[in-house]
């Protein structure tokens, strides 16, 4: 792992394995050290059910093939470089309108109001574009964040399959970043919103506002 790599970023992919995450926050700290993040951490450690479980998920940018953040940007500040990485907003163009922050299905863009600039996980572009690991993947002790080739991941994770198709309401998303799922139960796509319909441990969803709204919208149609 790590060390010297050929600067061929085209074949290197980001793999997230939530089942391996131990919630140590090392990635959050390492992320601030990246030169393209201006000292701010762009990774987020999500707690699944904090009261009852220690399970966490590191959330990095999925680098969508049809980036919603860039689609909704009224100033055309968010661009995708030719290697498929969706970059932070370009400072001369960003108008700090927060559209991307609200639109992203994964909650990746972060608005820095003091700098009036949206910054997001850009896969540590200064590092990965020259073949180095992103900061978070370089420190992750359990390899929940892995950056490498497809060959490496099939060799290292024989029981997992990478998946890069997601469902967000009516929106289908394919991404460059892959999520690892158990090999014995591979879904066609991962539903980003499914957790909203699953009661957390020891809790029952009594009132489903989202479903009610969806139903009433159907009746309008």
């Amino acid at each position: 792992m790590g060390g010297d790599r050929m600067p061929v970023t085209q074949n290197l992919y980001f793999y997230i394995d939530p089942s391996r995450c131990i919630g140590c926050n090392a990635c959050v700290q390492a992320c601030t050290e990246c030169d393209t993040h201006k000292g701010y951490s762009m990774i987020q450690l999500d707690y699944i059910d904090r009261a009852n479980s220690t399970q966490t998920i590191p959330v990095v940018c999925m680098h969508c093939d049809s980036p919603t953040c860039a689609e909704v940007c009224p100033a055309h500040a968010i661009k995708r470089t030719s290697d498929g990485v969706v970059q932070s907003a370009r400072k001369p163009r960003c108008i700090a309108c927060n559209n991307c922050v609200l639109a992203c299905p994964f909650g990746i863009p972060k608005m820095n109001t003091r700098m009036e600039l949206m910054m997001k996980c850009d896969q540590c572009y200064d590092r990965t574009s020259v073949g180095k690991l992103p900061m978070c993947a370089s420190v992750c002790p359990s390899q929940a964040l892995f950056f490498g080739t497809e060959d490496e991941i099939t060799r290292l994770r024989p029981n997992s399959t990478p998946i890069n198709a997601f469902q967000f309401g009516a929106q289908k998303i394919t991404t460059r970043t892959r999520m690892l799922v158990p090999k014995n139960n591979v879904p066609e796509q991962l539903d980003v919103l499914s957790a909203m319909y699953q009661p957390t441990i020891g809790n029952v969803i009594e009132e489903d506002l989202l479903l009610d709204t969806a139903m009433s919208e159907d009746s309008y149609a």
Partner: protein
Amino acid sequence: MPEEDSEVLSVAPDGRPSQDQPAWRRDFPLDWPEDQYRSRREFVSFLMLTSAAFVTGQFWIVLIQSWRKAAGKPQVKEIASANELAVGQAKLFEYPRPGNQCILVRLSDTDFVAYGQKCTHLSCPVLPRPDLGGMHCPCHEGWFDIRNGEPVAGPPRRPLPRVGLELRDGKVFANGYVEGVI
């Protein structure tokens, strides 16, 4: 810069290929290389339009000058009585049309000067400082000589437009701008 046959990297939300997308998608691509790319046709039309704008601007200047000449000399207007101002005092007036703010300053018993109040740098109103012998623009610390309106310090490079004055029967009349300074 992308080659002619380069594939567009990002996919539109409806998933259709780029040639089926509306024109605005090609004008505002999501991919960095396409966004940076300027075609020869775009560059040439930019050159053409810019030079056309310059040419139009030149004609516009000529037109404005001829309009000014056609309007002739502004009429004589009474602006103050001589006794109204003590030495070193100033009075605002509008000349030749309402809205063109000018300022009249009494320098001595017999000397009056009047200037358009717009600073020739960025049009801030200038303030008379007869005690310091100048007209002061506080915006960027511009100074003009109070006797002839010439710029002496700060960013202004052109003199203040000077209003011609005439002292008759104890009254001060404005009779047009002094030639060559407007």
